[in-house]
């Protein structure tokens, strides 16, 4: 799948889970920098991403994520 498509779908999920339509894509943003993205919402987002892209993450992989770009890279490697 193309990177842009992954970014688009990921952004939709993030906006839905965090109930915030104003979030804009910036690959360098970390979870801490996005309002409402904490451990709770993190799990919900991950679950939704797994359902959307029909993939399964490993916990170790998630622990190594630095920012949104690394999340996209991880999804790309599994799709």
């Amino acid at each position, binding site marked *: 799948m193309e990177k842009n498509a992954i970014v688009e779908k990921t952004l939709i999920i993030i906006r839905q889970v965090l109930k915030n339509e104003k979030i804009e894509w910036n690959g360098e943003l970390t979870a801490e920098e996005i309002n409402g993205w904490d451990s709770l919402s993190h799990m919900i987002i*991950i679950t939704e991403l797994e359902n959307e892209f029909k993939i399964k993450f490993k916990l170790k992989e998630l622990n190594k994520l630095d920012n949104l770009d690394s999340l996209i890279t991880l999804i790309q490697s599994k799709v």
Partner: protein
Amino acid sequence: MNFISPGFALFLSIVFLLYWFVFKKNARSQNILLLVASLFFYSLFNFLFSGLLIFSILFNFYIGKLIENTRKRTARKWLLASGLIVNLGILFCFKYFNLFSSLSFVNNFNSIPQAENIVLPLGISFYTFQVLGYITDVYNDEINSCNDLLIFSTYVAYFPKIASGPIESAKKFLPQVAVKRNFDYALATDGMRQILWGLFTKIVVANNCASFAQPVFENHDHYPGSTLLLASFFYLFQVYCDFSGYSNIAIGISKLFGIQLSRNFNAPFFSTSIREYWQKWHITLTSWMMKYVFTPLSFSLRRFKKAGTLISIIITFVAVGLWHGAEWTFIVFGLLHGIYFIPLMLFPKKNNDPLSHKQTFFFNLARFSKMFGLFLLIMLTCIFFGSRSLAESFGFINKIFSDSLFSSMVWPPFTSVFRTFITVLFIVILLATEGMQRPQSHELQLADIKSPYLRRTIYIAIILVILLFGSVMHINFLYSRF
């Protein structure tokens, strides 16, 4: 040796001068001094338990190296499991065995736990969680194992944080002590300011709150609902100011040595949701629990979607309660906090700000109502936190909601209307300062005040307030018992 004692002031001065004038050559000599000072500090509490601390250091250092050097998955898992079992086993023995072995605890919600015959090693909950986090991070390949025993020992035993945290992650702490620290005037003076604020919150606010709250919690039968309500209010601030005061002092002391510790509190009473509250209260414990308990748990239960997340949250907060002690009151304390997340999960609110770290300076009625409502919910849990048994807690709460809520106050010994008023005034000053200083790393970071004379006046005013209104009757820090 309590942080607030002439003996500790002398100890700190000596270590500080030696650190920057004698042992300044390189990181190794600085760490040697810090380690010796830390072990000396620890041994003053109980010489035998410093043996336990040393065992914990050596065990976890070598387990970490073994985990990293073993590439076979099963073997690594077993090594991690051994590390967890040994560390948690020691914690269990000291904190929970005595209480679980008493049948009355297991069978009777009303029992007041008798734990006098086991002395808890100082800081065991804090340093055990640190090393648990360390070996787990090594296992998860998040960090490399530490190859220098001196650096690792300094990390575990470091005296400013050994007694009551903050619970530092190895990822953040180890790199700081791996390099030589050069004296940073700005950091050191900032540390002194943070120490001063910590002394104010502990000696003035916490201890004066304790003068009212402690006698009431110890003898709640003798007081009407009106007094119990006020005592709950003061108790919550006692716990907060005691612990945040300690944390500020610890972080400030560490800055004197050029080492930054994690922030542990960030104006939690300005939170408008339980989620936000736990991001600002005992931050290092919450982060630890979220990373090592909630995240793996919710990850494995993610197929149950929101229900899985909720169950994980409740279990995590019961664990938070248990961390404080294996008493029903702490378990209920944790459970309540977990339950408070349910409405949040079921009815999430819209969020209009894309980025975090935006502080709202202006209060509106809606925001204030949320803060106040949350404050009352937290106050309720504090009744369990401060009671010796569930029966006491329920009795306490029952009385608050009885007719005696409207009875006239019965003043605890050594308190008066004037003293209570002064204590409330200081709480207001504390909250106002926290509210204004939320963007700063601590409350007394006055970089925005350009006039040095005004800044110095503020520092001197705080010193005078401590001298005139401070109380050292409840000098021991509450969290040093965990």
